[in-house]
Each structure stands twice: as structure tokens, then as C-alpha cells.
């Protein structure tokens, strides 16, 4: 097992170096110039411009900048934003809980709905339930979520007035945020109504973000279940007269969950991409929106370190899923 883990980790190192090159390289060939953007219409004298480039370290050869960047990374320094002058890491940590809260809610919704629907659809294969849910799942899978989000806003915020338009909680509430998760913080605050306010702000964005993972999980669960139900040991168990509930619950479901867990792990990247759109639509103060804004402001340090941090998270989650998979399914380890 340890050998397996070490092997996986060894793979990560070249990948991670590749990620730093991509993050650093792409960002540096971005056309445009953050220094000029700062000056705007008023412009800058050439001497002052040179001085600024030097202060920000942009005047040195690119490989030297890259090596310095790596060196600083090894010391936990992700650089400072050109715009806010704040360390990128602290900005990231300030915004990440918002994205994480959204993503966790989305994946929980996706699993709580997707898995049972998939199981039921497989058990009642060919029934109207199967057909309807699988059609809906395919529609969900085909959904342009930025449009879906706009539709939900029109319906629930515009026409019905049930949910707030944007933000994380009503501004009337103010309390310390020790965890950064609004749902938990609002409970801790003890303020009446704070939790329901936070929840009502979270509902639409999480539904939007959950849409595609939900569809994928439902479809995947169904086909995994179908496959397992066709296996010999399930048939045997059935033949032995075990109750259908036991067969499904104990034998089939557990084995069907193996590929489903992988699928859920793979949804992390999808969630991050979805977060970019969802956060833009709902003005959700998370890292997706932060990245989009930073790209248009040419805030190099934020874009490169942001890319790095996000890719790092995706990689680690995938590794964990990989290891879990190896743990559940020993055959993999010796491949």
C-alpha cells in the first residue's frame, strides 16, 4: 500500500512542475501590462514606467523571474497582488471558504438526489420513472448553467420574489466569521433568522452548480447498478432467496459505489469550472469570480498563483480519490 501511495506521489512531482510552468508561462505571455492599466488614461512618463517595472521585478529575464517564483513558492510565498497589494495567499484564503461552501452544498445535493435516483432507475429499468429521470438527467447534463442561473433568478427572485438576488447573507446581519462558512457562522452567531437568510442566499447558486454533477452522478449510478445487478454473485444471492432489499442494499450498492466515487472525485474540476460561471452570475464572492476579474485586470501574481492553487487542489482531490479507490478495490494497486 505504501509503495502504491509513493508511486502516485512520484507522478505528482513532474505534473506539479509542469503546472508551475504553465501558470507562470501563460500568464507572462498575456498581452497587456498591469502597470499601464494602473495609470489608465493619464499615462506615465517612460522613466516612471521603467521604475515601476523594476519595482515589480518585471524587467529581469523571464527565466530568472521563474526561478525566483519557484524559490518563493517553496517558502510559501505566493506573491502579492498588483492591484490590492495583498499577499495572494491571504486573498485566496479569504475567498476560498465561499467557493468551498458553495461547492460542498452542490456536491451534497448532487449525491443526495443523484444516487437514489440512479439506483431506483436501475432497479426499475425501462419504467416511466427510469425514462423520465434519465431524460431529465440528460437535459441537466446538456444545460448551459449560466443561462440556467439567469432563468432561476428571473423566476425565483424576479417573478416570485422568494430568494434574494445576490450575495451570501442579508446585510442586516453582521457577526464574526470564524470558519468562513456562512451557514456555520450564522448558526454560531446565535442571531435569529441569520441561518435562514444565509440558506436562502445559498439555495439558487448551489442548485445551479449542482445541476451537471447531479446529472452525471445519476446516470453513472444507474449504469453501475445495472452492471452489478447483472453479475453472477448478485444473481446467486437472489437465487438463494435473500430479500431484494438486502441484495440491493448490501451487495449491489456497495460494489456499484466504487465507480460512482471516482465519478464524484472527477466532478471537482467540473465544479471549479462551474464556480467561475455561477459566481459571476450570482455575484458570489469566491475564487471563480476573483480569477475572472484578475485575468481582465492583468494581475499577474494573482492569476499565476491562483491557477497554481486551484490546480493543486484539483490534483490533491484526485489523488485522494485515487487512493480511496485503491483502498476499496485492491486489484488496482497491482496494475
Amino acid at each position, binding site marked *: 500500500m505504501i509503495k502504491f501511495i509513493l508511486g502516485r506521489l512520484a*507522478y505528482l512531482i*513532474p*505534473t506539479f512542475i*509542469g*503546472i508551475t510552468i*504553465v501558470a507562470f508561462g*501563460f*500568464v507572462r*505571455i*498575456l*498581452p497587456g501590462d498591469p502597470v499601464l492599466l494602473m495609470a489608465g488614461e493619464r499615462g506615465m512618463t517612460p522613466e516612471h514606467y521603467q521604475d515601476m517595472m523594476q519595482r515589480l521585478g518585471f524587467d529581469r529575464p523571464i527565466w530568472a523571474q521563474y526561478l525566483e517564483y519557484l524559490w518563493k513558492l517553496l517558502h510559501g510565498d505566493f506573491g502579492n497582488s498588483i492591484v490590492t497589494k495583498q499577499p495572494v495567499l491571504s486573498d485566496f484564503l479569504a475567498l476560498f471558504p465561499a467557493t468551498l461552501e458553495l461547492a460542498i452544498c452542490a456536491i451534497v445535493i448532487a449525491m443526495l438526489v443523484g444516487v437514489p435516483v440512479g439506483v431506483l432507475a436501475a432497479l426499475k429499468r425501462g419504467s416511466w420513472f427510469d425514462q423520465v429521470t434519465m*431524460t431529465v438527467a*440528460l*437535459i441537466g*447534463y*446538456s*444545460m*448551459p448553467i*449560466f*443561462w*440556467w442561473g*439567469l*432563468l432561476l*433568478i*428571473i423566476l425565483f427572485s*424576479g417573478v416570485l420574489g422568494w430568494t434574494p438576488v445576490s450575495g451570501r447573507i442579508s446585510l442586516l446581519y453582521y457577526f464574526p466569521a470564524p470558519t468562513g462558512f456562512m451557514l456555520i457562522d450564522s448558526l454560531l452567531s446565535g442571531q435569529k433568522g441569520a441561518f435562514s437568510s444565509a440558506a436562502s442566499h445559498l439555495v439558487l447558486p448551489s442548485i445551479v452548480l449542482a445541476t451537471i454533477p447531479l446529472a452525471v452522478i445519476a446516470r453513472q449510478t444507474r*449504469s453501475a447498478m*445495472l*452492471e452489478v445487478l*447483472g453479475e453472477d454473485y448478485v444473481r446467486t444471492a437472489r437465487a438463494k432467496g435473500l430479500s431484494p432489499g438486502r441484495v440491493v442494499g448490501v451487495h449491489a450498492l456497495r460494489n456499484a459505489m466504487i465507480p460512482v466515487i471516482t465519478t464524484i472525485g472527477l466532478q471537482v*474540476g*467540473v465544479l*471549479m*469550472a462551474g464556480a*467561475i*460561471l455561477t459566481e*459571476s452570475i450570482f455575484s458570489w464572492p469566491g475564487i471563480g469570480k476573483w*480569477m*475572472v476579474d484578475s*485575468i*481582465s485586470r492583468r494581475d499577474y501574481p494573482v*492569476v499565476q498563483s491562483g*491557477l497554481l492553487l*486551484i*490546480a493543486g487542489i*484539483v*490534483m490533491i482531490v484526485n489523488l485522494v480519490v485515487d487512493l480511496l479507490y485503491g483502498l476499496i478495490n485492491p486489484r488496482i494497486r497491482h496494475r
Partner: protein
Amino acid sequence: MAVMTQAPAPGTRRQMLAEFWFYFRANRGALYGLYFFIALVLVALLAPLLAPHDPILQDRTALLTPPFWQEGGTTAYLLGTDAVGRDILSRLIFGARYSLFIGVVVVSISLIGGIVLGLVAGFFGGWIDMVIMRVMDVILAFPSLLLALVLVAVLGPGLTNAMIAIAIVSQPHFARLTRASVLGEKNREYVMAARVAGAGRMRLMFRTILPNCLAPLIVQATLSFSGAILDAAALGFLGMGAQPPTPEWGTMLAEAREFILRAWWVVTLPGLAILVTVLAINLMGDGLRDALDPKLKRS
């Protein structure tokens, strides 16, 4: 099915196609998807004939006209007009061209690139394989839309660059699939036989092995086709894809966003067009997978 297990003799091709069509037809959804897709291709091809108006012509006397069945609507603009008085129906019709074009270009680039890289990696193995697959890992480590956004920022906003960016981020899936199939096929008897018979490397890779890896690639290609349309629309929505006044659906949505509560049709219709198109292609993809995947057929 024959395709997966052994090199087919030319005479059986027709039979295979017939078998494929038999299974594909059995899936009603896939059939509807196919019909819709064919209709869409026709609409795109005949856009100048079908569209009642020029898609970028502005009628300053008819701004934000609702669709004809609503009060204030007119049959001159069946689905209404947008903020600067352009006919929505005509824009949607011309938009079909862009979406299909995006799908075709992205899939072609990423399919060809992915196949070549995957074949090379799988066939040669060793450090070449190592390097190629690590590069693919790097690309896959980034959320695709985020990487595409950065790429478009590098290349400059626009439809062409958006397509290139999406092709680059979707290409590793093809490379991985191809490599996996090649590894599976490489040591089979028919390949050995061809090798012994003195077939060159190129011939081995492209003529002998590749045709037998096609099934999963075709399924992946349909998935990428719909994915490309969605991603291009998302980039357009974020202002990094096709630029106004191009009637690309995502860009139309982005322009319409400020009217979200005033004029439902400028927001709803382009999104619906995207959804239905992507849905049709995904239905086809499901049908293809069922028809090409022998394992599912058995059960």
C-alpha cells in the same frame, strides 16, 4: 462487436454498419437527436435563405419588440428584437452556423491532435509516453474553463481563439483514450502478424491499430462536440468568445443580460437554442455509445 475484437475483413464493413444502425435505431432518443441535428445542419446551411432579416441589421424603430404572440409584438419579428432592434429569429438561425462550426473545428483539432499524441505515446512507450502523458496530466489538472479563459486572454478574445483554446483543453481526453486503446491492441495477434509481415511504423499505427480504437473515440467526439458548444457559449457569456455583433448564442446571452427582467425573450431564446442543440447531440452520443459498446448491449 467485431470492431473491438479483431481486424475486420473489408467485406464485413457493410454488415457492421447495418448492425450499428439496427442498434442505434433501437434508441428512440438517439433517433430524435439525429433528426434534430440534421435539421439544424440544414438550417445552418440555408441560413441566408431562411432568415427573414439580416442578423446584424439594426432597426432603430423597433427596439426590444416582444415575440409576435405577445402584446406589442409584430409578425415582422416573429421572436422579437433585441436592444438595438436586431431580429432575434434571424440571429438564432445564423447562430446555428457558429455553434456547429465551433463544434466541428474544435472536435477536428482535438481529435487529430489527441489521436496523434495518443498513438505516439502508446506505440512507442518509454520516455516519449512519459513526457506526453505528463503534459496531458498538467492540462487536465486545470479546470477546463479556467484554462480556456487564460488561453483566450493570452491569444486575445475572439471566436477563433476561443475555439483554439477549447480544442487545447479538450484534446487530452482523446490522447488518453487513444493511448489506452493502443496499449490494449498493441500486442494482439493481428498486430503482431502485420508487424511480422513487414508493415512500417506509420502503417502499423494508422492503418492497423487506429481503426480498431475508433469506437470510444467516436463516442468521446460527440461528447466533445456538445462540450465545445457549451464552453464556447460560456466564453462568449464571459465576454471572451465571439465578439458582438456576431450572432453567437453565448455572446447574445451576454449582451442580453442587462435586460433579464425587462425582456425575457432576449435572455431565454438563445439559451434554449444552446440547450436543445447540446441535448440533441448528447442524445446521439448516448445512442452511439449503446450501439458501439458491446458490453451494454449484452445486458
